């Protein structure tokens, strides 16, 4: 017997696509009914090269090892009241945004990568997709377990899935992911694997995980590091998947380009909430949103799109708008949240002078001129016992569903406002980017469950704000309103008296 020993590559191919076969009792179309309707042409699935060659035996071994280490830290943080080591209780509003907004997306990704794992014709890609499916389940479940401890003390986290399906600002991430999962498998890969998990990933990851590191949240940092090794596999899949589509047929290029334009923009708009978190919610700041955008998109993205130019791909259409909005984006989003904190499951607060000086330094072209006066005016109102809450409801963009608070690039005194007509009705969007998306598939975007429209239609518990908040399961005076005077603040100050003495306390009380 003179058998030649297989290499890792050969073994891997035999252990993945070698398992599949040419079906003969049913057609390929019957077994993979969703593979062609998007117009993407794949001539040779065997040309797919698996970037990582991980077989299940190794997967179980490595992931078990990672989980043992991670849960040891989660247990330790819980046992030792790790939350006491965090810089300030206001940090936890970032964690609230995370469990309400991001964790449900991890879960959606888990389910939809299973969809790809069943419905993509290429066996090699199916295997990569199924590993990503359980990786995403890992992320959802470890996040829930990590944040479970914080939920015992801090507010806003207690009914995250219920709130994700209903609250006005959470329809931003929910609609983002619904848009991807309602699309076909190739668009989903472009949207999530490539645009979100490759091009834009650092703009989600660095703010939250570095934010955790800088602010003493040991559990979240450990989760972040542990998840990142999974993310390296996902990133690589995204890059290779896009290359594969572009290389298989020239006709795929304009389709992929259109998806890139759309998903860059939807991803960017979603990330404005993260930018707000970075600039406003972290007591100890990592860097500004503008700096993060420069580093992780403008510099890194530049090299990437220079590379993809060989296929005929150009930079996303509205990348220039994102660049132009850098100085304004996060302040406008903070403004929205400050206005509507009475209807949000997180707190906002007065921006103190030290924080304003930091914002001034990071945003020399815009902050002092436009936003400082606004925050000083709010501070004055609060001091007079009239902390401002906006009792009207905002108009939402039909596509990204963010309240229409963004201004025209180059003109911060004019709200950016676009109108489209479809089937006898008018629909409003916040930007050219969102309008393009609407106009290309209006029959899709008119379906959106816009939280504000739904409230006006009486579908959200009743005609008054208290009834709506009740329907949201938002506990009045606990989950919502200003940090000043909140039960969380009282709890935190009580803890800190024991730990550090009273001179480090934020004792500003509520102005209702």
């Amino acid at each position, binding site marked *: 017997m003179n058998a030649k020993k297989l290499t890792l590559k050969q073994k891997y191919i035999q*252990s993945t696509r070698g398992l599949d076969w040419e079906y003969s009792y049913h057609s390929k179309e019957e077994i993979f009914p969703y593979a062609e309707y998007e117009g993407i042409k794949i001539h040779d699935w065997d040309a797919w090269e698996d970037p990582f060659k991980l077989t299940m035996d190794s997967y179980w071994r490595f992931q078990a090892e990672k989980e043992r280490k991670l849960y040891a830290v989660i247990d330790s943080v819980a046992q030792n*009241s790790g939350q006491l080591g965090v810089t300030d209780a206001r940090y936890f509003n970032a964690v609230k945004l995370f469990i309400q907004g991001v964790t449900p997306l991890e879960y959606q990704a888990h389910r939809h990568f299973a969809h790809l794992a069943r419905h993509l014709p290429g066996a090699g890609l199916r295997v990569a997709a*199924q590993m990503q499916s359980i990786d995403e389940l890992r992320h959802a479940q470890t996040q829930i377990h990590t944040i479970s401890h914080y939920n015992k003390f801090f507010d806003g986290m207690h009914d995250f899935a219920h709130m994700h399906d209903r609250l006005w600002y959470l329809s931003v991430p929910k609609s983002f992911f619904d848009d991807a999962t309602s699309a076909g498998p190739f668009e989903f890969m472009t949207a999530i694997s490539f645009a979100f998990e490759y091009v834009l990933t650092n703009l989600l990851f660095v703010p939250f995980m570095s934010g955790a590191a800088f602010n003493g949240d040991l559990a979240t940092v450990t989760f972040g590091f542990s998840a990142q090794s999974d993310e390296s596999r996902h990133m690589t899949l995204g890059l290779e998947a896009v290359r594969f589509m572009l290389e298989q047929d020239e006709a795929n290029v304009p389709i992929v380009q259109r998806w890139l334009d759309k998903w860059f923009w939807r991803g960017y708009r979603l990330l404005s909430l993260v930018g707000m978190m970075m600039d406003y919610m972290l007591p100890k700041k990592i860097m500004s949103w503008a700096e993060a955008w420069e580093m992780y998109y403008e510099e890194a993205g530049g090299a990437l799109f220079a590379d993809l130019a060989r296929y005929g791909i150009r930079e996303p259409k509205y990348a220039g708008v994102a660049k132009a909005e850098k100085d304004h984006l996060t302040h406008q989003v903070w403004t929205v949240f400050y206005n509507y904190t009475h209807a949000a499951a997180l707190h906002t607060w007065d921006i103190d002078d030290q924080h304003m000086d930091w914002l001034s330094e990071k945003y020399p072209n815009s902050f002092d001129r436009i936003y400082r006066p606004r925050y000083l005016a709010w501070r004055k109102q609060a001091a007079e016992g009239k902390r401002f809450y906006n009792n009207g409801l905002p108009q939402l963009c039909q596509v990204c569903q963010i309240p229409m608070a963004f201004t025209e690039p180059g003109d911060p005194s004019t709200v950016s406002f676009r109108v489209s007509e479809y089937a006898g009705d008018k629909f409003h969007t916040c930007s050219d980017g969102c309008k393009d998306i609407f106009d290309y598939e209006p029959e899709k975007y008119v379906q959106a469950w816009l939280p504000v429209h739904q409230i006006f239609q009486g579908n959200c518990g009743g005609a008054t704000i208290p009834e709506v908040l009740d329907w949201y399961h938002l506990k009045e005076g606990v989950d919502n309103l200003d940090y000043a005077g909140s039960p969380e603040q009282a709890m935190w100050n009580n803890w800190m008296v024991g730990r550090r003495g009273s001179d480090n306390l934020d004792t500003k009380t509520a102005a209702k």
Partner: protein
Amino acid sequence: MTIDIKSEEITPRRQTFSHIARRFGTDKPASRYEEATFDVQPKVNFHYRPTYAPEFELFDSARTKIAMKDWYVFKDPRQFYYATYNINRAAMQQRFDSALEFVEKRALLNALKPRQRQKIAFYLIPLRHFEWAANMNSQLVADWAYGTQIASAAAFAGADRLGIAQLISRIALAMGEGGDELLVRGKTQWMTRPEWQPLRRLVEDVLIVRDWFETFIAQYVMDGIVYPVVYESFDRQAPSALSLVTGFMRDWFADHSRWTELVIKVAAAENADNREVFSKWCAQWLPRAAEAMRRLAKTVLGESGDAAPTEAEAALRARLKTLGVSVL
């Protein structure tokens, strides 16, 4: 003398998440399994219908004929969430690795007589394709099932099936001294040998089923014949070197069955319509599974070999009865 460590007065304001407290009827601590599964899946207010299946919502209990008042009554007996699942399978994998190392060091699989080797290769190696299809079916369930409990367990089952397909591949490589000619031959047998066509045809028929619970049932009955016939009846006739390495499959099947049988039992207990649907599905797929293994069994075990699938079928019917499903 006692050790008295004073700790801070850190009193939790709540014990668990609200959605879990609602299920308990009170706010008390929840297990990691409970937190990781209860109500995590989105339920309502979806923004767009799937462009590839606009008759359904993105998560839709109507993707199956089976009806449940509450889809969160399928508590996995193993209580697998991601961490415990991987830790469990890593331990099982370790046992397989040790067994395979033992067998390879002593060249036990290469020392088989050619006839024996050929027979084992014939009945075992093509099954990696059966496992691959089982993986695809598990992914369908993970995609369309309603509720985190079933969907997550199905995702784990898919990983298991891929894992087993890969273990069979490793056994084949060990038998072939590292070369792949047994794998290549195994695929040819799966594609062309008459003994394998009934099973391959059955497997391909199941791949086009669109009700995920029917896929689940069809896979359950196929496994209910294949596993006892191959990993008990066939393996008992083989040299013990083989049973050493196929221990993973037997252990896995016992573990997996704890979950699959709970799912069937709970859904059957829900209402008579469910029971009727299960009966119909079992009546459709079970006899075909048994029939598919009969010819193979005769080749492997001899003329009276078809007793093995027949016994497996009878045992499966009896088990289904205890789960609340009568198969005509």
